[in-house]
């Protein structure tokens, strides 16, 4: 049992923790003074969290320390953790200023909390994410904002709701809000120009609020036909019947235009009521939607053309760009399933024959149909699709060989890179060096081990069960089944007067797993902070599990800055044991620069191929798309190069797999790794627990 710190002791600790942001004018003394009266557990709690927050940013740590004493007066530990996580998420997303605002505005968190059990976004985010993902069938992000609204790609929900007495009821408000926001995109709220509809009124803001209210009523009626449970929740929340004047909105074929017409009639007559469960409309949504519609039109054209080129009509000369004529051979008939509102069915035809589109084309069509309700005719007519490619080609004139300006060290490797525009490799385009990770001498590994001790025990147990595959040994003296072959020959021996053998049994034997796996860890700058922590923790857990299993494994990190400085960081080689050096190197993984993935995959495939194993796995831990500074690696070029590198790996007998935390992964990973050879872990905090589990499923 530790005892309470005095102000002086706290002062020393705070100076140690926060020295980078302290100065002569801003000392630790006032902080220490305000923390001193807290209880001993609360002091420990604060010091622990300052240390955690410092890993991302020292100023945020300071702001937390300053705000903590006030928070303890009004919130319990769980609520404070939710508050910290909210602040850190805001920091990760919007930077220091917004992040520290969350710490400073503790009041907004505490005012609602009395007498009700607050539901926070943080605790329900995962369930809500799954919920909207199930509803929408196309990627929707969730995020927090003070007013609930959506730009049709992200649903913004309040950080906490404390309106009704119980947690469950407050959660149901979250559910209702998420459903209403999803319905705005799904049932055509943005089919009309909302900003224009409200601009003519004396107070456009008031008109927008009323229109939001009317749309809520229309959508509620729409929802009640598909999701009666949600409609019941809504009706319960409202408590009273819908205003008769709005009855037209509840008819099955009411559209956003009915709402706008009603707005003109009711503006100034009634005002929009303000409820915790009413959503807002923002004109910004229109822009996002238009951008997406435009993007998806070109994506659809590209996807269909590529599909036609590769699979449907490969007899075309591969040298020519798939263009107008190919697209026009497609035909799409969409029928909205109005009867039960369950969705839009469509049939895709190519040269008049019906076809089942590949998964990514299907998702695109689905998304377009959700936005537009139909596939416009001009979507299947080729446009001047090559302008973008022409621009990229123009940028690419300095195709000089990378060799001249590099020092010839013995650990330098040269790799080709695939140029999808030119359909050939750029020779010796990337320069790659193998470096060692600087070992860190902190006790990160020990901390991780103690943090996840129960999970590690569990993990070891499940991995123990995996160890080895069954093999039947024949002609054993002892075993669990009769070996008939041995018996038959023994019988023949006996008949002919020979000695009877006693090796007449078969026995099961656990055989060694013939598997080698190489983990390729993203060390790009974007992993800074929690992602890096999660990656390192994942590696520690993984090593613990793999040691049990006895699989041969290696860990390498990758990063780089431009094609002339691609770097591979050695963390554990195949021939190294999991010793203290490896542990210190795992602890020493630090975020570096960019993610030029193609060259890293090529190099590590080469390393993996030096190992003799029946199955070779290359597992990537990544946090986003391939990307590099300059030379337009970002975007299609990088994706195609990575894809080519993966195809090469496949050809060389290496099985690639990807574990990502990028919520947009669905858009590009199936193209890179195929439909099943990747997993999205959408919550960074769960990564350490998930990675080992994914590995177990992968190799079971």
């Amino acid at each position: 049992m530790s005892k309470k710190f005095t102000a002086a002791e706290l002062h020393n600790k705070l100076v140690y923790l926060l020295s980078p942001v302290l100065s002569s004018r801003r000392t630790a003394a006032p902080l220490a003074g305000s923390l001193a009266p807290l209880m001993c557990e609360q002091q420990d709690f604060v010091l622990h969290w300052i240390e955690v927050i410092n890993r991302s940013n020292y100023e945020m740590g300071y702001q937390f320390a300053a705000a903590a004493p006030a928070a303890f007066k009004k919130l319990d530990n769980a609520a404070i953790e939710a508050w910290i996580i909210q602040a850190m998420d805001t920091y990760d997303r919007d930077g220091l200023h917004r992040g520290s605002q969350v710490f400073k505005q503790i009041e907004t968190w505490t005012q609602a909390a009395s007498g009700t059990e607050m539901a926070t976004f943080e605790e329900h985010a995962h369930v809500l994410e799954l919920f909207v993902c199930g509803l929408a069938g196309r990627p929707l992000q969730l995020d927090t904002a003070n007013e609930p609204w959506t730009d049709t790609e992200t649903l913004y929900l309040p950080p906490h709701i404390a309106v009704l007495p119980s947690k469950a009821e407050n959660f149901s408000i979250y559910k209702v809000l998420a459903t209403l926001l999803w319905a705005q995109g799904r049932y055509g709220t943005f089919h009309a120009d909302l900003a224009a509809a409200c601009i003519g009124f004396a107070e456009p803001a008031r008109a927008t609020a009323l229109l939001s209210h009317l749309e809520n009523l229309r959508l509620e009626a729409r929802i009640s036909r598909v999701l009666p449970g949600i409609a019941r929740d809504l009706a319960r929340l409202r408590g009273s019947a819908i205003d008769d004047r709005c009855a037209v909105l509840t008819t099955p074929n009411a559209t956003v235009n009915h709402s706008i017409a009603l707005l003109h009639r009711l503006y100034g007559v009634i005002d929009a009521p303000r409820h915790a469960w009413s959503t807002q409309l923002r004109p910004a949504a229109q822009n996002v939607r238009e951008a997406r519609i435009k993007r998806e039109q070109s994506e659809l054209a590209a996807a269909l053309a590529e599909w036609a080129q590769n699979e449907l009509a490969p007899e075309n000369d591969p040298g020519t760009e798939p263009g107008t004529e190919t697209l026009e051979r497609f035909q799409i008939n969409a029928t909205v399933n109005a009867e039960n509102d369950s969705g839009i069915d469509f049939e895709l035809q190519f040269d008049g024959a019906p076809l089942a589109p590949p998964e990514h084309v299907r998702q695109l069509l689905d998304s377009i149909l959700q936005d537009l309700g139909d596939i416009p005719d001009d979507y299947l007519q080729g446009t001047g699709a090559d302008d973008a490619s022409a621009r990229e080609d123009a940028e690419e004139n300095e195709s000089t060989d990378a060799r001249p300006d590099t020092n010839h060290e013995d650990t330098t490797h040269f790799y080709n890179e695939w140029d999808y525009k030119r359909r050939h490799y750029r020779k010796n385009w990337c320069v790659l060096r193998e470096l060692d990770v600087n070992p860190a001498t902190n006790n990160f590994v020990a901390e991780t081990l103690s943090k996840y001790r129960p999970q590690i025990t569990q993990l070891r147990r499940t991995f123990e069960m995996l160890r080895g595959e069954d093999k039947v040994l024949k002609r054993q003296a002892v075993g669990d089944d009769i070996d008939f072959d041995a018996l038959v020959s023994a019988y023949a021996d006996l008949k002919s007067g020979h000695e009877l053998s006693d090796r007449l049994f078969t026995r099961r034997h656990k055989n060694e797993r013939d598997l080698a796996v190489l983990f390729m860890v993203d060390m790009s700058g974007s992993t800074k902070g929690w992602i890096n922590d999660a990656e390192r923790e994942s590696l520690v857990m993984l090593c613990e599990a793999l040691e049990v299993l006895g699989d041969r494994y290696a860990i390498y990190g990758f990063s780089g800055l431009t094609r002339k400085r691609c770097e591979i960081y050695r963390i554990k080689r195949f021939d190294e044991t999991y010793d203290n050096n490896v542990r210190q190197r795992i602890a020493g993984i630090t975020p570096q620069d960019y993610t030029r993935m193609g060259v890293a995959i090529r190099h590590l495939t080469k390393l993996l191929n030096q190992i003799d194993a029946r199955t070779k796995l290359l597992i990537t831990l990544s946090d986003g798309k391939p990307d590099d500074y300059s030379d337009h690696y970002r975007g299609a070029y990088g994706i195609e190069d990575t894809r080519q590198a993966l195809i090469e790996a496949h050809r060389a007998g290496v099985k690639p797999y990807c574990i990502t935390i990028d919520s947009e992964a669905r858009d590009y990973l199936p193209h890179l790794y195929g439909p099943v050879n990747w997993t999205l872990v959408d919550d960074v905090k769960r990564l350490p627990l998930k990675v080992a589990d994914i590995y177990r499923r992968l190799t079971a």
Partner: protein
Amino acid sequence: MPTKPTKVAPLATPSLQTEARFITTQPYYEAVGNEIALFEAAYASTLPVLLKGPTGCGKTRFIEHMAWKLKRPLVTVSCHDDLTAADLVGRYLITSNETVWVDGPLAHAVRAGAICYLDEVVEARRDTTVVIHPLADDRRILPMEKHGELLQAPPEFLLAMSYNPGYQSVLKELKQSTRQRFVAIDFDYPDSTLEEKIIVTESGTDASTAAALVRLAQMTRNLKGNGLDEGASTRLLVHAAKLIARGIPAATACHSAIAEALSDDPEMLRAIDEFVAAVF
């Protein structure tokens, strides 16, 4: 430790002989596309068939339906990871001081001119799939090395197998040399109207329950790859509908028959329960 047998005891009459089963009553099957015509054409041309698709979408029911339609006996082998080549082809058994050859299900199906259906073939040991290679190309023979016999398949014989490409284990991929011998028929969940009809017919529940179940299934299928390995299959929906038709409340029935069947993750279970609460 097992004791050493003092003498070789005569075994009972071998009962491991697999019975080829004639299907006499029509199994209920709703065609999703042109799979019936495709299968019949493949059968007429003595081409082996590979049924691809997620679990519970009707592959096994389809093969039973086709066996009934073509009036051929059906031999089904559920493949497991201990299934060896001998399990398929046959082995010697010992009875009263002599060895007796017993055909395995595959050899039996070849002799009987039956349809042999290898369910979830990737689950079997890798050497198993190689035995079927000579049977799956134009030679159509089954060499039984141990028995010293070369079985020539009659034209009525058909080899069919099923395969779920959604498995994530890299060790459970079908080898190219195997898959390239088959006519592949792709199965997916039926569209909503058809799926509702199937649920109503199979479970006897009402149309509105069936519609809600289909909507629920679509939501879980949207989560595929996002926490779920597979969405709810038609089979699961039929299970839930049967429970509901017997008076179990929808929330309980869906939780037991669908949510718990799909996942163990508490948050995922909550999300599915929320879907159930929303659609009913």
